């Protein structure tokens, strides 16, 4: 009988940031915590963007952080972009950091000399992608589309750059997110062909993976911010003569939420690393990271609202800002249904390997006559 030789794979499992990455993270955290207090988040809800914050982020070189230096960016990678979107997400910063960066990186990877790249790195032109355009025809609901000057979409296999004299109006939503409909067939919209065929599709696939990890990270930051609010509230709010944090119903919940955020961040980082370095090895990871970040953020904010009691459901409670956004941000490219389909490559690989093992008779086959009765007989 042939017996399969069990295979092993040796990889690093190293989540530590480099000194530079740690520094970038500290700069980002300081910038957004100082410049994006909740009053400003509320004040920007009607416009969908805080223009002054956007300018400040440009001046701090945060908008061009992950854009190529040839385009006037700081040439950092996807991991740095993920660090940036987490810190922006933590304070719900009303700037389209993730959408703009992913779109600009897509444009730069396809047409490095495109005239819009330098103004994009300088923040004068805001870009966005239509994440569902490759799968659904017709008008596209574009995240950041209500504040974008140009939108990239994949239509019939062609990568198009759409421009309008001015952005379309916000499509009202509970997150006050600057979502807007962009219609490639609208005669008022100008479409420029950027790439076609294989090149267009490959670059688009990379961009969608980047959008997923950037959004997963923004949601991780959002969830972390909500956790901080809930923790602080649990220490100051008293009931029955003690801070509510002394009750396990509250403290255990806070631990669960905190740990879910930590895991969501690690999974997102791992997805970002694979997508940047070995996109073909674990193609499902960006979808998995986003899928998990959506459920984490929605669960964390719902339970953080609950920890705030009745106050949590009021519009004046900051935690309600988080809950409203958690339900929208990651789902703009379709919800769990589509993400699960994208994650199925992981299952397909296992199915293929188990089929191959079963067909070759090489399935690990030891003394499997082992019979394990569920209710055991008394051992001798």
């Amino acid at each position: 009988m042939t017996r399969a030789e069990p295979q092993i794979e040796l990889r690093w499992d190293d989540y530590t940031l480099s000194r530079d990455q740690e520094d970038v993270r500290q700069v980002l955290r300081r910038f957004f915590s100082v410049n994006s207090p909740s009053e400003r988040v509320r004040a920007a809800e009607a416009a969908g963007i805080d223009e002054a914050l956007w300018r400040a982020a440009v001046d701090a070189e945060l908008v061009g952080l992950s854009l190529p230096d040839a385009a006037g960016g700081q040439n950092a990678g996807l991991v740095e972009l993920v660090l940036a979107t987490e810190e922006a997400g933590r304070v719900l910063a009303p700037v389209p950091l993730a959408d703009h960066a992913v779109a600009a990186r897509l444009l730069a990877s396809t047409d490095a000399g495109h005239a819009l790249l330098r103004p994009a790195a300088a923040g004068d032109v805001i870009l966005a992608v239509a994440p569902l355009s490759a799968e659904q025809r017709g008008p596209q609901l574009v995240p950041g589309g209500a504040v974008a000057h140009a939108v990239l979409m994949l239509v019939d296999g062609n990568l198009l750059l759409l421009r309008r004299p001015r952005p379309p109006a916000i499509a009202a939503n509970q997150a006050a997110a600057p979502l807007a409909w962009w219609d490639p067939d609208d005669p008022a919209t100008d479409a420029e062909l950027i790439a076609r065929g294989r090149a267009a599709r490959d670059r688009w696939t990379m961009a969608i993976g980047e959008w997923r990890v950037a959004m997963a990270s923004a949601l991780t930051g959002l969830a972390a911010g909500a956790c901080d609010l809930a923790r602080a509230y649990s220490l100051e709010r008293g009931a029955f003569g003690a801070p509510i944090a002394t009750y396990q119903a509250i403290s255990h919940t806070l631990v669960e939420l905190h740990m879910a955020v930590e895991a969501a961040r690690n999974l997102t980082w791992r997805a970002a690393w694979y997508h940047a370095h070995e996109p073909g090895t674990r193609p499902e990871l960006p979808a998995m990271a986003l899928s998990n970040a959506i459920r984490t953020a929605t669960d964390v904010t719902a339970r953080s609202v609950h920890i705030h009691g009745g106050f949590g459901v009021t519009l004046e409670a900051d935690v309600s800002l988080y809950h409203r956004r958690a339900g929208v941000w990651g789902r703009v490219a379709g919800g769990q249904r589509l993400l699960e389909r994208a994650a199925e490559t992981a299952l397909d690989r296992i199915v293929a390997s188990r089929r191959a093992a079963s067909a070759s008779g090489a399935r690990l086959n030891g003394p499997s006559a082992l019979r394990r009765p569920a209710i055991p007989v008394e051992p001798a």
Partner: protein
Amino acid sequence: MNFGQIELDERQLAFIRDVRAVLARHWIPDPDVLALDHHWPTPELIEVLAERGWIHPCHAEEDGGAGLGPVEARLLELLFDAYRVPSYGNQFLLPTLDRYGSAELKAEVMPDLKSGRASFCLGYTEPDSGSDMAAARTRAIRDGDEWVINGSKMFTTWAQQADYVFLLARTGTVQEKHRGLTVFLVPMRTEGVEVRPVIGMGGVRTNVTYYRDVRVHDRYRLGGVGDGWKVVSGPLASEHGADAPDPLGDLNGPMGAAFTRTLARLVERTVDWAIVPDPATGEPPIDDPLVRSALTAALLDIEVCRSTPPGYGKVAASAALARHAEALLDLTAPAGLLDGGAPGTVEHGVIAWARLFAPATDIYGGTSEMYRNNLARGVLGLPRPR
């Protein structure tokens, strides 16, 4: 940040071949074993591994190890897992023994514990105290150069094989709580030690051990009288995954990683079931979108478990295992409900077995609630619970 493959040199590739050859000769992997910490190596395998220093492979050769570097040690760990070699070793105990044992005791017990020819079991829990470990009532009373131990310990898993029990005993009063405790390394062969089996759901064996006028010399004491709480804290922390994350190891700690691997094997076995056409319909279940959805959901949670920090890895993995064992068994119903050996059984009953095994995983090694209590104070800085 790095998740890349590690290039192996000729020496490391030769090491892999060597390990494979040894295991092919001395060990038959059992694909039905989903949980490696509930099986014990054969005496033959223990001797073969001990001879090569592979039970504590990172230790120096003169310390019973093989002096392996971190890459070789990780390769060995991955190969042991791939070949379903039961988890075995004294790594949680050795640093504590080294620190708190007398020179005389170390000379007596360390050589065999270091090589792995001898083993130990944990004597923490009692019939009346589990999570509240410091409420232990097993009593040790000094009598000249000796101690006389009376009491009982629950869930002393592997006591039937072990050479020693790492025993937490009360030398002070019950009111002193953790200040009245002392630790002993009691040889299991001592007169008055009795091991009785306790069988858990799924046939998982553990024990209750009784201590009746068990006399041990004072040299078997670890640490000072009344210092027991300090002595157990080291091994407890390691078991709970408090050691610094190792870039070559599993982020989610030893137990978190073990339960995650159990879940991964469970998914594989469910796939094995799903790729065979259902005799009733002629279609393989894997073509059913609901089957694919349940399996993909499990794969997502496996990735989340792998991404969970060590202090919480066990809690996350035990919950994921319980949830998905239930869901995957549900997919295979009704045939999957049958025990291995029953006519028409699915995958030798291992999916049904996993459901029975799962509830233990958020209890043994510390309940999930204790982990949450500790993390609430240690990580979130919350006040002590009322």
